[in-house]
């Protein structure tokens, strides 16, 4: 695998101020993310995973440090440039699928594809993740797993360079969770997308190309998984 750096965090820290209380959610964190890899970021609840992902995805700004995406420092971006960054480069998958309840599956995906110049066709993506019978269903008519697939389709269809998932299986049962993870690997392979998955579930780390461990806002481990196993073989 060619080791081209897609995004790199340099001494990034994030402090939340709540009145007089300061919470250091991330402390002097540095990390390189390579093009085409599937990273799993592990850590207990409150360790700063979501904070990290938000900074990577251009949803939040770090307190200090630089974030370079393809060599450009996104911390220097203004609101408009940041919006464009999210629009063109990033696809998000949320723990609670967060679909628009008044839009059908297809429309939820189109909401994203309308934003970019070269999207993957919404229907094709929904087909490929096994939802071809559910195109015109509203979220309330879909199961949790199906909703999460639509959410993934929504993120993927923009054809982003970076696919970010925050506990994407957190709200799903075991089997559905496995299917979703397999799907993420498939997208990683088929579309060449760089995938970052956040989880507190250690088992999921087995499918990753690389595993990063966070504890109390600090990276305590960053190792390459030389033998990632297919998602289908994960057990927890």
């Amino acid at each position, binding site marked *: 695998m060619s080791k081209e750096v897609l995004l790199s965090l340099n001494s990034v820290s994030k402090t939340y101020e709540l009145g007089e209380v300061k919470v250091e959610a991330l402390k002097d964190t540095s990390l390189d993310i390579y093009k085409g890899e599937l990273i799993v970021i592990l850590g207990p609840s409150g360790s700063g995973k979501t904070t990290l992902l938000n900074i990577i995805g251009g949803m939040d700004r770090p307190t200090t440090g630089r974030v370079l995406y393809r060599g450009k420092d996104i911390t220097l971006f203004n*609101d408009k440039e940041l919006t464009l960054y999210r629009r063109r480069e990033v696809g998000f998958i949320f723990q*609670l699928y967060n679909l*628009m309840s*008044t839009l059908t599956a297809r429309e939820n995906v189109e909401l994203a594809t309308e934003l970019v110049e070269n999207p993957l066709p919404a229907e094709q993506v929904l087909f490929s993740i096994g939802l071809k019978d559910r195109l015109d269903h509203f979220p309330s008519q879909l199961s949790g797993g199906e909703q999460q697939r639509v959410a993934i389709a929504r993120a993927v269809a923009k054809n982003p360079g970076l696919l970010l998932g925050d506990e994407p299986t957190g709200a799903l049962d075991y089997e559905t969770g496995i299917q979703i993870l397999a799907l993420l690997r498939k997208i990683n392979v088929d579309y060449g997308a760089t995938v970052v998955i956040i989880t507190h579930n250690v088992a999921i780390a087995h499918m990753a190309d690389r595993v990063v461990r966070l504890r109390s806002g600090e990276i305590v481990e960053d190792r390459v998984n030389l033998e990632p196993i297919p998602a289908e073989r994960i057990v927890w």
Partner: protein
Amino acid sequence: MRTLDRRLLRTILGAKAQYGAVVIIICIGLAAWISISSTAENMSTALAEYYSQHQFADLFADFTQVPVNTIDDLAKYKEVEMVEARIITDIRADVGREFYPTLRLVSIRHEQEINRLYVQAGRIPATAGERGIALLNVFARENNIAVGDKIDLIIRGELFPVTVTALVDSPEYIYAIKDIKGMLPDNLNFGIGFINLPLLQELMAMPGQANNAVITLRPGVDERALLEEIKEDFKGRGLKSMITKEDQVSHALIELEIQQLQRVSKAVPAMFLGIASLVIYMLISRLVRADRISIGILKATGYSNFELMEHYLKLALILGIVGAIGGITGGYILAGLMTQLMLDYFHLPLMEINLYFGFVFVGLVSALLFCGLSGIWAARGVIGIAPAEAMRPKAQLLGKKSLVEKWAPAVWTRCTFSWKLVLRGISRNRRRFVLATAGVALTYALILFSVYMFSIWNIVVDQQFGRLETYDYAISFLEPVGSDATVDLRRQVHAPIIEPFLELPFELTYGWHRQSVLARALPRTSQLYCFEDQEGNLVSLPSRGVLLSQGLANSLGVKRGSVVELSSYITGGQSYLVPVTAVVAQYLGSGLYLSLKQMERLTGQKGTFTGVVLTSSDDVKGMFQNMANIESICSRTDLADTFSEYMGVIITSASFMICLGGLLGFSILYNTTSVSIAEREREFSSLRVLGYFKPEIFRLIIRENAIATAAGLIIGAPLGKGIVVIMMNAVTGSTPELFYFPATIKPSAYFIAAGLVIGFMILTLLAIGRKVNRLDFLQALSSRLN
């Protein structure tokens, strides 16, 4: 259609009732604007057209009896185009009813040029071979007189039969009232009859003479300047008074009516659009709050603040456009009906209804502006939502100390736990509390205004005829009488109090302002007239100086202590400086009052009177009405009735809108309250899970609303007063000489309105109580956000 737009459409369709209500408010506002302003415009054009086709005079002059030649001299001014010498005189006529109405005889020329009549039926009387009269159409209609009927004119006690040859309208008597004091047309008892000049000269024994002139001017003449010049030149040649057409009674009253329409046409829609934008603000800011997570996701997906604000702004604009289209259509239809109504009311024969594009444009733009601005204001909420919101479960509201806790800790410690919960709840979501309070305040203000409107007329009549003028009958004589007349009267009728008065026309000058007024001189010890200043203090007639009604004082800029100039043909044109010792309250009409002594000093007239006022339980009207020297007898009940009847198109339509305003208030109340409950389903569900009983939760809601209601009532009272002042200024501001509506709200009105608001609130809470009852807390807690 973009997917986001599709979502918007579904949002709207999902809450049709709520959005529909806003649309209706906008509709009403715009319909009011379009219909009322078009009506005013149509009236103006119809009037202008009527005047120009019928050669409405530019100047009107009253003379004592003078040779026609004197009046014809007016034609010598180069600015004057035409002059017509006329006789105008008020007599009584026997039209086959028990009561003899007053008929104003106006001479016409056969080849009539100025103030040409509009013949509705029959033909103008011939100059020879018949004794014909043309009657004002409305008078004939009220008295069931048709062309060909004979009526008897009563002149100097003799009957002169004449034949009605025509029913006509006249540009000079569109509004047929005796003088500015009459204020309201009474077409049954006062009419106009047009008779050829030679015949009228013969009837009135005024051969070769006349007492009135109408004048038209060449285009571009400064009529005011000319008027002053003529007045100067004709001093001592019998000229009693001269006015321009602006001051001509009928014209002035119609102009006032049009101006009132124009004011109302702005005030009412502004109120409705204001309310609509408030409701839109409420709806959209709530929507934004409810969409918090969706907005976060959309931002994370790459939608910009601008695109998302546009999304919500579109909602506001759609409401505005739909409302505007409805309102413009409705307004157009209403404009036709209203114009018809007004033209009928004024018996304007011309009829042309136009839709003015300018009004449509202004209406559309203001609807979009009002809706757009409140939409933008509400959509600003989008900016504050971070894309990262989507990543977190719903943020916990920060537990804040309540204001009571901070500022009145003593009270706080005495509160029971559930009251503390209520107070905490309020301070945790102050914005919701502010909205609820604003809803109550607005509702209260609107209802207060409605209650005021319904009581105003009684206030006016009660004040004017119950306190300020307490006579039962006022009798005016045709010819002045001596003091023995009161003695005569006392012999014929049982009247505990009879007071004579002397009423004479004056010209009142103050600074730049000049106005014709009727000055009424009364005995200083009058028991039947009572004066009070604007602060409500009793004022007595001064031995030196005059009293002015506030309407008159305001329009002239006169204050207490000002010195005004009075002159009259009776004083031989000489003017006197007199101090105004007080400005007094008068609700209907306007006037200048002075003591008989002061009048004597001004005019030298002593021991003569033009009328009497009296108290009596006899049917004075029935006894005296047909007496020779009596010009008119007014009973207090008559006056009160005529005024009550009047209120007319404007007040009726205004009250209608105000009723809608009350309903509107109710819907605001219902909306704010139920929205606040809907937002908190989860919170209430949590309380249920904790073991709260439904009635306990309901009590929580009631208490919170009780506090909001109390606060709303406190804020709403001055707000309502403000609306009353603004609206009353709009309605009467242009007519200070005619009406004065005291913008004082009776304490009872405050209570009635508060009672209604509380009643509405209880209805709302009952409706909401059902919701709380049905609240399925498990489902509410497990429901996914979006």
